[in-house]
Each structure stands twice: as C-alpha cells, then as structure tokens.
C-alpha cells in the first residue's frame, strides 16, 4: 500500500550519478573535524595539540543528552584545535585539525551475538559511536532511539525517499549494501520494541527497491515503493504516505507511534552495534553541471570540499554556487575549505544553467504556494506577515509548522524569497515564546 501526502512539487530530478558505484577517496594530508556536527551542544575536545590519534579515537566528548561524540577518522597527530569554517553553520566552529599519517585503527571487537543485543546496549553502542541522523538533520540517534515510555513505537520506517534532486548516496547504499541496512533496521526495531518495519523508497529508484525487497526477506520487513514527489523523504510526509497518520502540529513521530531513520543511519547503527565501529566516514554525492567528476564517494569525515573537488577532476569555470546538501534544502557555502560532516549528503557545484540569483518581485497571489505546501500552510501570507513584523499573526497562521522544504519558493513565479522570510518569522516567534516563558516564570 502506498498513499500520498498533499501538496509537493515535481522538480527536475537530475540524478546524474545513479549509475556510479560508490568509490573510496583517499584522505588529504590534513583533515578538519568540527566538534559540532549535530543538533544540540557541541562536543568538548578530549585531545590536545600533539596527541597521537588512531581511526576511531574519541576526540570530542558529547556535552549533555542531546549531543554526540566525535571520533578521529584517520590515524595521525593533532595539529591544533582551531575555529574553522563549517558547511552548515554560520561563523567559525571549533574543530580538531589532524595531520594524516595513515589508517591504523583502534581495536574494535565484533559482537557475535549482535542480533540479540538488548535495547539498552544498542543505545549505548550508538551513543559511543557518535551516530547522528545522516539524511541531513543530524539529530543524535541515541536520543531518537529512546522515545518516552508513554509513547510506544509500533512501527519503524526506514527512509529511502531521497527526494532531493541530484543526491544519490542513499540510492547507491540501498543497491550496494542492502543487507547492512536491513540488519540496522532490525536493531532499530529491537531498540524501540516495534512490531513492524517498513522501508519506503521513491519509485524513481527501481533498482534500490528491488535490492531492498530481496534483502528485507531475511527479516520479513515490508518494502514500499512510493510516488516520486518532493518532499517524499520528509519524515512527516513519509509517515502520512505510508501509514496515513499525521504527526500533530508541534509533535514528533513518536506521538503517532513511529520512528523514522534514514538508510545511511541504519547502516551506521549496524556497524556500530556489530563491530563497535564509530561513525567516521560516509557516502556523499558530488554532482551539479559544474562537477567534472560527478559520482558517489566514500570519504572520511573532516575531508575539505576542496580536496574532493580536486581529486575528482575539479570544478568547471562556470560554477557559481556550491551547495552542502541538496538543491532544495542545502546550504550555499562561502569557501570550499569547509569539511564533510556526518550529515553531508552531497556537494553540488551548480552553474548558472541550473541555479539563478533571483530578483524578488511582488506576490501576484496566484495561489501556487498554497497548493504545493505539504504542511497545508499559506506561505504567501506568513511570509508577508514575517516580513512586515506581524509575528503574532504569523504564529497564529502556524509559521512554526513550516518544514522549510522550499516547495513554495521553488514554484513561486514572482520569485519571492518565501523560505527566507518564513525562517526569519520563525526565529522571531521563537524569541516571543521564550519571552513569554520567562515572564510566566517571573
């Protein structure tokens, strides 16, 4: 069974790299590992300048519950701990700079009884491995695997939606490592005590659907081929399409008894639980018309974008924009010195043929944004309210429910910077809420 969610768009998919197998890239001479690669508090460095590290040595300690450990992806020497450019955060972020010597690894012990690991030990090993959501949100996975007791999770959804144009790392992972993903799904189910596992994949990835169907038989998991429509890979929309359940406004998937994990995260969980291996490398797609060597690459966390671009043949002259992530939700970077982090699903080198700097025009009230908004919002209205400073009204019109998928701004014929205005409105409404809370306490 596959249902649908309301709204959404059909952008050109431009999956230029679907047929390129995953290729490993050698690390550069020096890597930069940010201590903040996740939602929540940045990790605290546990090494000092001059320290010898191996693959898997913990170099950053999680601070508090919503945080994640950081590990060295290579063996070498810590050169410095400096503020460095970051692919998704503004300003400079404390990072561990490591001089790369080799690939000598810490001793990881394989657990022969991994299949029967207890929920607690799964969460412990996931926490120890520093796993975060690899689809882009980077939320610490051990937290997600520990939903509140009053909300039992009955269904685990493995997200193979990958609805962002250009990106193909999940497609390749599903084709090349379907068994590992399914094993990870089994462990996720084990951790939260769910009955059912559904693997949802957009129908523009038939090879991945086939591979996952074969692999899923081992555990009797369902594989559902979903209508290809952006943002099918968004948690809330995926749950709606697969189960018909709606996550309540302001709520999380566990409120409707569901846990969603990305396919890459599932694989990382499997590797952490069975082999004790921390998350220190990932697959990403290098693409865009400006990329001379587009493909899917396995790279060490901390590898600068510039190294990947150089090693694959460089960027064409007419590249005007470099994106960390996908073209609809990704972030434009200002320098190629930013490193790959745990949630970097792609590096896009866009030319003026694919992207344009848009001059904003007045809204002509065509209603397209209302039609395509998968959250049932009126983007033209809340954007205007945010822009004009009417944050109370924007709040009443559910500005906080916006998932910033960009469908509205993509489809807007007036080129309104809808997401930008709405993001501003959201941050101002959060300030209002904080103020209200403080006043309530005082």
């Amino acid at each position, binding site marked *: 069974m596959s249902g649908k969610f309301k709204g959404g768009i059909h952008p050109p998919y431009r999956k230029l790299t679907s047929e390129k197998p995953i290729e490993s890239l050698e690390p550069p001479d020096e890597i930069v590992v940010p201590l903040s690669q996740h939602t929540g508090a940045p990790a605290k460095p546990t090494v000092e300048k001059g320290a010898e590290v191996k693959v898997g040595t913990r170099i950053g300690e999680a601070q508090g519950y919503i945080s994640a450990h950081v590990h060295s992806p290579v063996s070498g020497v810590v050169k410095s701990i400096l503020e460095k450019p970051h692919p998704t955060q503004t300003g400079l972020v404390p990072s561990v700079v490591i001089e790369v010597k080799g690939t000598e690894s810490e001793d990881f012990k394989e657990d022969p009884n991994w299949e029967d690991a207890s929920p607690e030990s799964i969460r412990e090993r996931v926490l120890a491995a520093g796993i975060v959501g690899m689809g882009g949100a980077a939320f610490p996975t051990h937290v997600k695997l520990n939903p509140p007791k009053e909300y039992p999770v009955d269904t685990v959804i493995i997200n193979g939606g990958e609805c962002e144009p250009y990106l193909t790392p999940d497609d390749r992972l599903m084709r090349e490592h379907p068994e590992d993903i399914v094993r990870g799904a089994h462990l996720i189910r084990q951790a939260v005590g769910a009955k059912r596992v559904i693997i949802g994949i957009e129908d523009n990835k038939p090879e991945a659907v086939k591979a996952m169907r074969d692999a899923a038989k081992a555990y009797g998991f369902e594989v559902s081929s979903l209508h290809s429509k952006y943002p099918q890979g968004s948690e809330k929309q995926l749950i709606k399409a697969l189960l018909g359940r709606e996550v309540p406004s302001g709520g999380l998937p566990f409120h409707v008894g569901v846990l969603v994990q990305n396919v890459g995260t599932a694989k990382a969980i499997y590797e952490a639980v069975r082999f004790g291996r921390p998350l220190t490398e990932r697959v990403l797609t290098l693409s865009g018309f400006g990329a001379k060597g587009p493909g899917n690459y396995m790279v060490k966390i901390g590898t600068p974008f510039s190294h990947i671009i150089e090693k694959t043949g460089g960027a064409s002259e007419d*590249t005007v924009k470099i994106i960390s992530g996908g073209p609809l939700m990704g972030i434009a970077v200002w320098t190629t010195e930013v490193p790959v982090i745990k949630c970097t699903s792609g590096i896009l080198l866009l030319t003026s043929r694919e992207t344009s700097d848009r001059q904003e025009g007045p809204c002509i009230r065509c209603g397209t944004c209302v039609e395509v908004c998968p959250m049932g919002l009126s983007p033209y209205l809340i954007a205007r309210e945010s822009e004009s400073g009417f944050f109370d009204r924007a709040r009443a019109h559910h500005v906080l429910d916006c998932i910033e998928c960009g469908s509205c701004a993509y489809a807007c014929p007036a080129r309104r910077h809808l997401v930008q205005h709405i993001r501003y409105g959201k941050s101002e409404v959060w300030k209002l809420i904080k103020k209200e809370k403080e006043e309530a306490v005082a």
Partner: protein
Amino acid sequence: MKLILSSSPHILTPENTKRVMYLTLLSLLPPVAAAAYFFGLYPLLLVVVSAAASVLTEYIFLLCRRKNPLACLDGSALITGVLLALTLPPSFPWWAAVIGSVFAIAIGKQIFGGLGYNIFNPALLGRAFLMAAFPVQSTTWTKPITVAPDAFTGATPLAMAKFSGKLTPHLSLFLGNTAGSLGETSSLLIIIGGLFLIILRYVDWRLPLSYLGTVAVFGGIFWLINPARFPQDPIFHLTSGGLMLGAFYMITDMVTSPVTKLGRVIFGIIAGIFVVLIRLFGGLPEGVMYSILLANAVRPWIDRLTMPRVFGVSKKKEASS
C-alpha cells in the same frame, strides 16, 4: 571563483510573472481579432491607446514611488489596458478610454501599492468609472459591420431581452455577430483564449466553471418558473453580454481572486448570483462588471474562511482554540 551565497532553495521553476502576463496577453489575440472583424479598425485603435495609457501611467507612478520604473513592462499594465478596451462600446471616444486607463492604473492599482496589492480588478474599476463619468458614450452600441456596414446604433442582446422581451439567436451570440462591447461578443473566441490559459494552468478552471455554472443554473431556475417574464434561457445567459469575457479574463485575475480551490468556487458562485440578480431585477441590462467588483470586495473574507487545514491540526481543535 566568486560564489553566490543566497538562501535555499537553489533551483527554481522556469515559470515567472512576466511569462504569465505575456502569455495571458497572447491569449487575448482571438478576442481582439474578433473586435476588428466585427467592428472595424477603430476598436484596434482603442486597444492600443488604452494599453499605452495604462503602461505610461504605471511608469509615472513607479517613478514617483521610487520603484523600478521598468517594472511597468511586466505585462500587467498592458493586460489591464487591453481588457479595459475590450469592455468598451466600439464607438467609444478614444480620449475617454485614455481617462479610463489612467483611472484603472492610478486608482485601481497603484494607490493600493501596485501589482499584487489591489483589491479590485483594475480594468473593471476603470470601466465602472467610465460608466459613471460618461454614461451616454458608455451605453451607445453599434451593430457589427458584418450586419450593418454603416455602423448603425443598436441595442445589445441583453437590453433587447430585458426591455422588449426579444431574444437574439443563440448562434449569433456564440459567434459574436451582435451589438456589444469590443471584445465581449464572440463567446467562441473568448473560450479558445480561456482554454489556452486553463491548459497553461494560469487559470483555475474552477473559477469560470463555478461562475458560468451558477449563472446558468440560477438564471435557468427563473426561466423555468416564468419564461414569459424571464425569457433569458441558460444558453442566452451564458453567451450574451460580458459574461464569457468576465468568466475567463476578469474573475480569473490572480491578484483579486481567492488563493484556494474552495475559495475560488465560492467566489464564482457569489459573483454568478449577482449577475443573475442584476440582469433580471436590477436597473441595468448587464451585471457582470458589478458582480465581479462585489465579489472582489468579499475576497479577503473568502480567503480567510477557506484557509487550508494545517498538517497535524484538526479543524475542530482550531475552531475551539
């Protein structure tokens, strides 16, 4: 390498406002051609003069408001001018058309803040102004040159039906071989232009359908009850006067119509009811212009009433909070 740093999304639909406006303008070619065919070359002059006056007024206002004056070429002012001309009688004085165009853009659009901010359809507001300012010229009609080559004055089919109970044959109404405003007489050619816009998805079919459907059904009820007093049958209602032009080009104006599908249906029904009430019980033979202006006035309320249900919020809970 110089990198652009704008916010997501980084890819955009090729659709844009200018394209919407100019393709809409293109779709107006059949009705404009019909105007020339049925009423001669003077109507073309009216179209050109109104369009030019509209664009010039827009330019001056944008300049005074310190906006980019070249935005007057976005096509929206051109459409207003052409549409206004198409609602005028074929022998309407050209200088009065200029006054109407200036009013349409200045008072109908720029005063509100320009494109996207006006409440009323500017072309119709201009037409309403001309109706008040030049009542005689605004209601003096000529027969088509295809019927009477010497431009005789003649009553419109709606006036004949209302005041003398005489019905014009359906085929003449459908093809446009009757007295009337420049661009309103040929239902056939307006429908061709309108279908083009529906295929391009610049017009939501719900608007013309609910508007026309309401007029046909509501008007038809009166015709069934008392055909002696209300001789206008549904097909007559649909093909006479400015209804077709209104249904495909006026009520469908994006800026002044609702943004939701349900809102558009309600909007069309409200306007349709007004058309029938004015045509059958009002002092004027035609009610399309006022029906749409009245619907424009309640449009903000319709938008508020038909806001979509937000994902994860139940309608009931929203109403009680």
